[in-house]
């Protein structure tokens, strides 16, 4: 229940405060969001399979975000930032699709 409240507070805060992404973080926020979404979808699948672990979720969420940001940072430093962020998004997108497919199979058995 508390996480749902947190979600609502986050959305409301985002709308009310109207934040702007700081310029230095501009390239990292989209990737971090995708990485976090991957963790969230993975957690949803784990809940469906009744093996959700809060510690695993927290660790995977934080590490996903950090690793994604780090990869983009590294890519920028190496001069392949746009290509590497595309690659990260592709990989995370595949993982999100795979998890979503697992959730779908559990719910619809199809």
């Amino acid at each position, binding site marked *: 229940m*508390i996480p749902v409240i947190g979600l609502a507070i986050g959305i409301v805060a985002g709308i009310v405060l*109207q934040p702007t992404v700081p310029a230095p973080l501009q390239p990292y926020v989209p990737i971090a969001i995708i990485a976090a979404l991957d963790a969230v979808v993975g957690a949803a699948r784990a809940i469906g399979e009744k093996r959700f672990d809060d510690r695993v979720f927290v660790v995977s969420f934080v590490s996903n975000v950090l690793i994604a940001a780090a990869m983009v940072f590294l890519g920028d430093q190496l001069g392949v930032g746009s290509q590497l962020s595309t690659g990260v998004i592709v990989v995370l997108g595949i993982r999100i699709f795979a998890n979503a497919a697992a959730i779908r199979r559990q719910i619809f058995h199809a």
Partner: protein
Amino acid sequence: MRERSRRVTRPMQVLIAVLVGALAFAIVAQWREDEQRDFAGVRGAELGELLKSLDASNQRLSRQISELTATRDELRDSTASDEQAEEAARKRADELAILAGTAPAAGPGIAVDIDGGQEVMTAAVLLDAIEELRDAGAEVLAVNGTARVVANTYFLDDRDGIRVGGRLLEPPFVIEAIGDPHTLDEAVYFRGGLADRVETKGGTVSVERRERLTITALADATDAQYARSASTDPEETP
């Protein structure tokens, strides 16, 4: 999996809520950021490429501008010279129309009244009179206000009068001539001229000088049936 995971502790729930809230916040922030569509999120290398392509298109467009400006100036110049040529052509056409008798003419001149019967005025006398007036610089001539005298006008004695360019004119005759009134006047009265010839036959001649004489009689414009301009391209002639 581990049995402990069944029971989620409260602090962990709060932490998860914070993470999910942060994610939602970031999504909303990024969403709004994307709607602004500025270049803040574009990488340096991409910005460089963008700048380079903009630079190239800028150069191309400014070259195009200078080309088009040159073309426009050229066209404007040629329009001006076309207008000059058209003006000159129109002026020339007006002059030729007066000469050919297809346009009315006005100017200073004289009107010569010749009183006398048919035995006084013959076609030969009238032709001589016209020639004298032309000799004196008459530019536009008309007889009785109806027959314009031009290059191909002919004079022919008829039973009731004189046929001038196909029109039958009856006495008394009035010759209107546009030109210098003084010179024209003298052309009528010189010794052995029109006045002498008419008066020896019993007629009378009177000359009226006018500051402004308007001749509205027009000659019939005829297309040459045989004559062609020799200066035209020989391939064009049939």
